């Protein structure tokens, strides 16, 4: 597993943080620069996964941030979505999940691929007026064109949508 790292990019009111490596107890959040940004986007695409010790550190870091800024979580990979759904606590109160990856598997050629699901199309997070939900369809395999299927138990994978 690679070491956990954060790359920060500030533009106006927006702070984008790109995380990579494995989130464990060695994760150092002090490397993130102080910011007054109103919007904080967390890009998780390069995160390899997390254990509960890393998640504990993540929660201590993100809870105060979420009280002063609007947090958006982008491109969460399957390893993180799983932990979001099992342990919960990954997504702080009031944060938006804008996109997640769903692993797909093609039975015909064995190709595996992570497909990006956007909030509003593949899944919706609940609001005061709407219920959360998800929709999983087969997708044409990018290698052979046959139907590829989502390689998850949807009820378990999308559980994070239904947590309060």
């Amino acid at each position, binding site marked *: *597993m690679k070491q956990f790292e954060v790359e920060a990019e500030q533009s106006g009111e927006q702070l984008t943080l790109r995380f990579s490596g494995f989130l*464990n*107890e*060695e994760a150092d959040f002090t490397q993130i620069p102080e910011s007054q940004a109103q919007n904080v986007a967390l890009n998780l695409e390069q995160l*390899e*996964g997390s*254990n*509960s*010790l890393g*998640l*504990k*550190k993540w*929660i201590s870091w993100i809870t105060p941030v979420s009280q002063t800024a609007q947090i958006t979580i982008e491109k969460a990979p399957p*390893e993180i979505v*799983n*932990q979001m759904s*099992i*342990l*919960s*606590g990954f997504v702080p109160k009031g944060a938006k999940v804008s996109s997640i990856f769903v692993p797909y598997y093609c039975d015909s050629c064995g190709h595996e691929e992570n497909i990006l699901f956007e909030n509003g199309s593949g899944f919706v997070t609940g609001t005061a007026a709407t219920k959360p939900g998800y929709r999983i369809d087969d997708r044409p395999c990018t290698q052979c064109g046959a139907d590829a299927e989502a390689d998850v138990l949807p009820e*378990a994978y999308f559980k994070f949508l239904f947590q309060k």
Partner: protein
Amino acid sequence: MKAKLWGVRGSLPAPYTPEYLEKKVRGLLQDYGEYLKDNAEGDVDGFLNQTERHRYQGFGGHTACVEISTDSSQLVIDGGSGLRRLGEKMMLGPAGLGRGEMHILMTHFHWDHIIGLPFFIPLFVPGNDIHFYAVQEDLEERIRAVFRKPNFPVPYEALPSKIHYHQIAARQPKAVGDIVVTPYELDHPDPCWGLRIENKGRVLTYAVDTECNRLSRKEMGEDAKLYENSHVLIFDAQYSFLEAAEKVNWGHASAPVGLDLAIREGIERVYFVHHDPAASDEKIMKSAAQTAEYFNKLKETYVKKNEPLPNVEWSFAPEGITIEI
């Protein structure tokens, strides 16, 4: 070396309510009715063998008390309500004749770790020698306070047994017979000491009560030795992962955290204890299911990277089990 868990609840003893017990009995009777349809002879053992253990035994309601024993020595950890029954057992031996010598090590003095002391019968038998150990300087005062009127009818001064106090040094080994104990500090609202307990090359780590605010070896510093090269871990899993994360400074942890520490340190087996007094047997089983799901996904993540994790055996411990270290 063996460890018998005389109490596995945290915070407060948790006896069943009559309503809850009735619910359990009804559920079992209903299932037994179904079982009889296929097993006309109705053997009860057969039925119980195929029923989840927590449904007919539960996890138990007594608070922290562990009996460590080797062929020649015995050491009791903490005086929670589980100590009463241990005392009753001891009364069948030399303690009942006033010839007992007992050693009790206190991790800290929260109610759930002292509430059994006034009901420890060997204390009331003249001739018994009872040795208390703790890192805390005020050990004697803390034990005296348990017997102070009007909280308990028998004043400390009237206890007929001989009581001895031993303050032990932090992070220094202390031998009690052939059991060697080294205390390391845990993360708890009042000072509380985890114990590294060794005998004949085997090591048991007792890490109860702790919130694990210090997680990495670097953050733990000297206290990281509590877990190093240990074989068996008894760990505070009072809450589910999210509950523990929300209850900042409540001083308790969750099973996934203990499991990750065990994985890092190569510990073979983990027993989760200090169950929340508000948790039903079903709620504890839910935490166990969450832990299993968590561990499976973590293993998958590592396998994908061709870095398979060591296997760790783990369970949520019920009261009364004996662990072979």
